[in-house]
Each structure stands twice: as structure tokens, then as C-alpha cells.
């Protein structure tokens, strides 16, 4: 998901309250919509992103960073320094793991920029090897996300029908 959970909840609640419910003419349908609104307002403080996939992401990123270190340890050029503050609480929340995942992604972006800029100075094929390792890890994550994503309703969203 691209947006934060808080903003999605707030946005859905606001859309229901300010756009959808006032336009519903049928009383029965309107009472159902109020039911949805009530449920969303009560779910909001009780819900967070699933922790498992976030922890998996971080574990895979750390393994990847170790692999990148292996690919670059005998090169004359030093890659960007890896983040050192990667420890998480023993029972972390999603709100603690998510920023860690993003910090590690930022590091992977730095490595990609470094590999690209130094392609000709690195041993032959090494930049491509680093890129392939990062792409493999990212692709696995994207595939999982796509699997979780419902087919888009772009036609209905555009037409409003």
C-alpha cells in the first residue's frame, strides 16, 4: 500500500460522510452506509499494517545488504556505508518496522546509484550483479503485493458507474 493506514481511514470516513451519505436517497441504504461509517471509526484505532510481511521485508533486506557487502569487499571502491542502527525491539509494532524497511530501501537506492555511477570502475559485471540481487529481492516483494491487490476498478472509478 502506498498511503498510510491513518490517512486511508480518514479519507474513507471523510468520503462517506461528506460525499456519499448526503447523496444517498434511499433510507435503508443510508442507514447501511452509517453502519459502515460506524465500523470504520471503530476499526481505525484497532488496526495496523500486518507485521509479518514487514518483518520478512526487513530480514530479506538485511540478508541482501550482507550479500552486497560480500560482492564489494574486494573491490577498490567502497560502497556507501550500510545503516548501523538496524536493531528492532524484541516485540516490534508495524509502526516501528515500517520506517526501518524504508531506511533500508533508501540504502538500496544509494547502492544502485553508486553501482551505476561506478559501473566502469568496478570489476566487469559486478554492477549488474549488484543490480540483479536488489531487483530479485524487490521483485519478490512486489509480487507479494500484487497478489494481495484486488483487480483495479479504473473503468468504474473513471465513469462513476
Amino acid at each position, binding site marked *: 500500500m502506498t498511503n498510510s493506514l491513518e490517512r486511508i481511514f480518514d479519507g474513507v470516513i471523510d468520503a462517506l460522510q461528506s460525499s456519499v451519505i448526503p447523496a444517498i436517497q434511499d433510507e435503508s441504504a443510508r442507514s447501511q452506509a452509517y453502519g459502515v461509517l460506524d465500523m470504520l471509526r471503530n476499526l481505525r484505532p484497532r488496526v495496523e499494517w500486518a507485521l509479518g510481511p514487514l518483518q520478512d521485508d526487513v530480514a530479506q533486506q538485511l540478508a541482501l545488504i550482507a550479500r552486497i557487502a560480500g560482492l564489494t569487499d574486494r573491490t577498490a571502491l567502497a560502497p556507501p556505508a550500510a545503516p548501523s542502527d538496524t536493531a528492532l525491539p524484541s516485540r516490534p509494532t508495524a509502526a516501528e518496522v515500517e520506517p526501518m524497511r524504508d531506511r533500508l530501501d533508501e540504502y538500496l537506492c544509494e547502492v544502485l546509484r553508486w553501482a551505476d555511477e561506478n559501473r566502469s570502475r568496478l570489476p566487469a559485471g559486478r554492477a549488474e550483479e549488484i543490480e540483479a540481487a536488489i531487483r530479485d529481492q524487490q*521483485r519478490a516483494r512486489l509480487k507479494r503485493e500484487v497478489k494481495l491487490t484486488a483487480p483495479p476498478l479504473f473503468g468504474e472509478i473513471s465513469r462513476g458507474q
Partner: protein
Amino acid sequence: MLDGETVTKSLAAFLGRQTGSEVAISGLRRYTVGFSWITYGFDAAWHDSTGARHEKLILRLGPPTGLFAPYRAFPQFASLKALEGSAVPVPRVYWYGEELDTFGAPFFICEKVEGEAPLPWVSEGQEAFPPATREPLAEQFVAALAAIHRFEWRGTPLETLGAGVDEASAATCEIAFWEELLDRWAFRPYPMLQWAISWLKAHRPVAPRVSLVHGDYRTGNFLERGGRITAILDWELVHLGDPLEDLGWVCMRSFRGRSPYMCHLIERARLYERYEALSGIRVDPAAITFYEAFGTFKLAVIHVGAARCFEDGRFKDLRMAALGVHLPRLIMQIEGTIEGKT
């Protein structure tokens, strides 16, 4: 943003000043299409030296909170004005303004062209058009694109749309433009997009010429009535650049799903053949692959921007968040396009 009553009053006042007559506005309707500019249809009635006038018109506003804000109306207005009377079917434009005191946003007003906008999204396995409709539409679709790219923009106000762009720099300029937007909009890092930027920079083609480029040429952005394309719409991303950029956009997976027809209209080989014949511009398949990948990258950046717009609360439209949900699919499509897997 303005409510309907305020838009109606502002329209009456603005058109009154332009026509020198009292103008009655009726039937104001906001269209749901589009995620960026806001579109209203309305009827305007007034009297001038020729007698009673009654026009169906469109008002387009670039909202200060919108995706690509701050907006300018000039590029769209100037492009439509320049193309008036050419082989490209476009709505006739009448007025535009960049100032905010009329509608609170840059705007332009044009004629309302009759027709429906077929959308590029159909259920998987379904055909968007039956063959008898598709084939003539496809020919017109390619002919209009070729006419845009053949259009002689030099010596017109369109020269200002891409100052300094030449054949060698066209792709570089576009990559830089969209990379800068990604930097501005992303609220988390995307390693796969970072890799895509490196790939695009390493594979940028030299343009066969510098043309007027529509920037969002696809099914969904033209009107059709009775088998005839009546208008090419949504010139928001118009610029000067490589004509093959538009052709790559037409070929993107996002606008055809698994259909063998680009934009649900025409098979790839036939598209290239007709485009070359009508435009006189040779199609380099490697350049099209580049621009399909670049277009998918651009679409991914737009999705990031939409999510950002929503996250910041600048735009409450929930459709923005819905776009953001589908970002992973698009990012995978960039890689798939580069590797020839689409």
C-alpha cells in the same frame, strides 16, 4: 475548490466581460473523468451582433491543490488553438487565463464536442470494440497521431513549450522532468524505480525529429461518435519532444491489458506500418521499447504523485489513493517491458 453556484456566477461574470453582453449560464455539470484538471460542462446563452447565441461549452480548471499544481493553461490552450483547422480533431478553444481571481485556478474554455470517451479498461479477455468499430477507429487514431507529429510548430506560440529541446536531448529532458517529480512526490524510497532511472538514462534514444507530443495519447482521451473520432482531448502533458514517445505510450500494457491490440485498437505491426506511412517518421522498435518502459515509469510516478496528493490532504479525492494501491503492478510492468516480457 469552488462550489457549483460559485462556478456558475463566475462563468456568467467572465463571459459577460468577454462578450459585452449579459450571459445566462445553465446546466452546469462536473464530469468525473480525469484525475487532475477539473472539467465542467455548461450551456451559455447571450446576444451579440449576430443575434441570440446559445453554446454548449466546457470549462477546465487546473486546481491549486491538484496533482501537477501549479498549473498553466497556456500549453493546452495554445496547442488546441494552433491545431484548429488541422487534420487533428480538437475542440475549438475560446478563452484562457492563468490568473486566480476568476475561478481560483488557471482555466480555459472550449466548445463541447459531441461524443463519448471509450475507456481503455475492460474485463480481461473482453474486446473493447467489435472489429467493425475498431478498424476505422484505429485508422483515425493513428492518422490523428501522425498529424500531431507532422504539425509544423516552428514559428507558432508552441515554440515556447520545449525551449532548447533537440533530437539528442528530447529523452534526457523527459527523464529529468519525471525524475524530479518522483523526488518531489515520493514519501518512501523505491529501489526498482531507481534502477529503472539508471536503465532509462543508459538507453535513451535520439529522436528522429522534434515534434509536438501529446503526452497522454490513448483510448480514453478521445471522443467518438458514430464510428468517428470527434476530438482528441486531455492535452495536459503536451510538450515538444520525440514523437516516438507518444507511440510508446500507445503501446503500453496499462492501456491494453492482455489484448493484442494497442490501446484496444490496432495490432503492433499494423500500428507501426500505418504510422510510418502517415507520418513519414520511421519507427525504431528499440526506441518504442524504451518509450514503453519510460511511459510506464511516468505512469508509476503519476501514481506516486496521486498518493502523495491524497496523503498530504491537498486533494480529498479517494480515487487518488486508489491509484496508489496499484503502484506495485506498474513497477513490475516497467521491469517486464525492459526485459521484453509484456
